Structure formats: structure tokens, C-alpha cells
């Protein structure tokens, strides 16, 4: 059953990302990406990280992608979707990506074999995660809140229309 779930989620996420590469409409791209991120959340839950799976679905598939959809709505490109790149660029990019994949695979091939689920189950419930977050990772947590404030203020300042001068 868990194998079936794994392969279902993996195939759906890979297929939706492939469809995103092939589709030209940006709104469809965003919706396909929401599907892929939801499948990734399911994979997280399958590993056993239930809290991270919830966060993934709420924050990524919920908040971030809705931000994308809103920006697509605001941009409203009139002159159609831009055509794809030239052929040789596509082949070159696929070549670069394959080389990178091979590098990753060869670098981590040694670690793939002994990776098997150990019988010892560590509790990954939100309680222990929160305890770790507020004791050992307290400073990164606080710095993250500063980062979010900076991003909030920065995005408002960037997008705000200037009142007096319209030159820039």
C-alpha cells in the first residue's frame, strides 16, 4: 500500500512538472505546480514528517502559489505568451541538467546503498519538533522572524507606486 502511494505521488508530481515545462500558459503552470507541491507534501507525510507535510501544503501550495497566481493576474500579458527558446538552447540546457544529475548521483551513490529505514522509530510529532525549534534552534527561529519582517517591508516598499515623480 505504501509502495503504491509512493509511486502514485511520485508519478503525479513528475508528470505535473513535465506538463509545466511543456505548457505555455502561466496560469496553468501555477496550477500544475500546486499539484506537484501537494504531492510532495504527501511524500513528506509518507516518510513520517507529518508536521512538515502540513506546513508544505498550507504554506507552499496554499500561500506561496496563490501569491504567484495573484501576480499572474496583475501582470496580464497582452501580447501573448512568449515563444520558447531556440532549439539548441533547449538541448544544451537538458545536457547541463543531465550532467548535474549524473554528478549528484555519482557523488551520493555511496550513500544510497546503506540507506534503509532503521527499525527505531523516533517520534516526529509536532511536540518534539517544537521543543527542538525553541531550544536548540532558537536563534535561527528569531532571525527568521526578522527576515520575514524585512521581506514584508521590502516588498511593500518595492511595489508601492510613487506619488510625486513618475520618471522611474
Amino acid at each position: 500500500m505504501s509502495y503504491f502511494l509512493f509511486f502514485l505521488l511520485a508519478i503525479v508530481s513528475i508528470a505535473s512538472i513535465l506538463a509545466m515545462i511543456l505548457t505555455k500558459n502561466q496560469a496553468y503552470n501555477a496550477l500544475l505546480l500546486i499539484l506537484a507541491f501537494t504531492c510532495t507534501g504527501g511524500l513528506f507525510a509518507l516518510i513520517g514528517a507529518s508536521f512538515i507535510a502540513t506546513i508544505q501544503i498550507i504554506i507552499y501550495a496554499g500561500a506561496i502559489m496563490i501569491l504567484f497566481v495573484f501576480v499572474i493576474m496583475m501582470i496580464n500579458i497582452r501580447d501573448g505568451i512568449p515563444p520558447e527558446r531556440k532549439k539548441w538552447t533547449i538541448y544544451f540546457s537538458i545536457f547541463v541538467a543531465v550532467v548535474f544529475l549524473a554528478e549528484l548521483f555519482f557523488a551520493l551513490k555511496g550513500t544510497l546503498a546503506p540507506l534503509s529505514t532503521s527499525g527505531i522509530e523516533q517520534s516526529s510529532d509536532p511536540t518534539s519538533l517544537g521543543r527542538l525549534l525553541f531550544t536548540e534552534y532558537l536563534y535561527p527561529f528569531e532571525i527568521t522572524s526578522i527576515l520575514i519582517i524585512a521581506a514584508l517591508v521590502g516588498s511593500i516598499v518595492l511595489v508601492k507606486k510613487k506619488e510625486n515623480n513618475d520618471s522611474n
Partner: protein
Amino acid sequence: MIPISYFIVLSFILFFLGIVAFFVKKDLLTQFMAVEIMLNAANLAFIAFAKSANALDGQVIVFFVITVAGAEAAIGLAIILLIFRHRKTIKTEDINLMKG
């Protein structure tokens, strides 16, 4: 129970697809989405390795990565909106101000 290496290989494939999408696509928004795909693949690898090491620290890192991705999405989309407002386009081929 599924072997952890399956998840690692899946994260490789997702990262690969993210790179391909980044280079094949030509508008800034979709390229930004490709960056999010790569972040997600890295998150999957983090969680898989955390499970195999039997430690919760990887999940905490993923929590931080998701938070930073949220901040990055807000700033990046604001910059894309600003570029569109100035240049009336988000095609990367038309944004060639620094081309010699």
C-alpha cells in the same frame, strides 16, 4: 516500509526537472517557479536524510527553508512586478540592459 533511497532518487529527478524548466522557460515568472521546484527537491532530500539518520534536525532545516522560500517569493514577485511596470515585459530576452 519504503527504502529511503527511493526518496533520494526522486529528489534528484525533481531537481533535474527544475533545472530543465529554469533553462527552457523564457518568462521570469515560470523561471521563478522552477526555482521553487528545486527548493522542494532539496527539502525532500533533507527529510529523507533526516529519516535515515533518525534525527529531527533535518525537519527543522526544512521548516526554515520553507520560511525563507516564503520571504523570497514575496520579494522576488515584487521585483518581477517592478520589472514589468518599468519595461512592460517579463521575457528574459527583452531584459538585456547589461548586455554588452
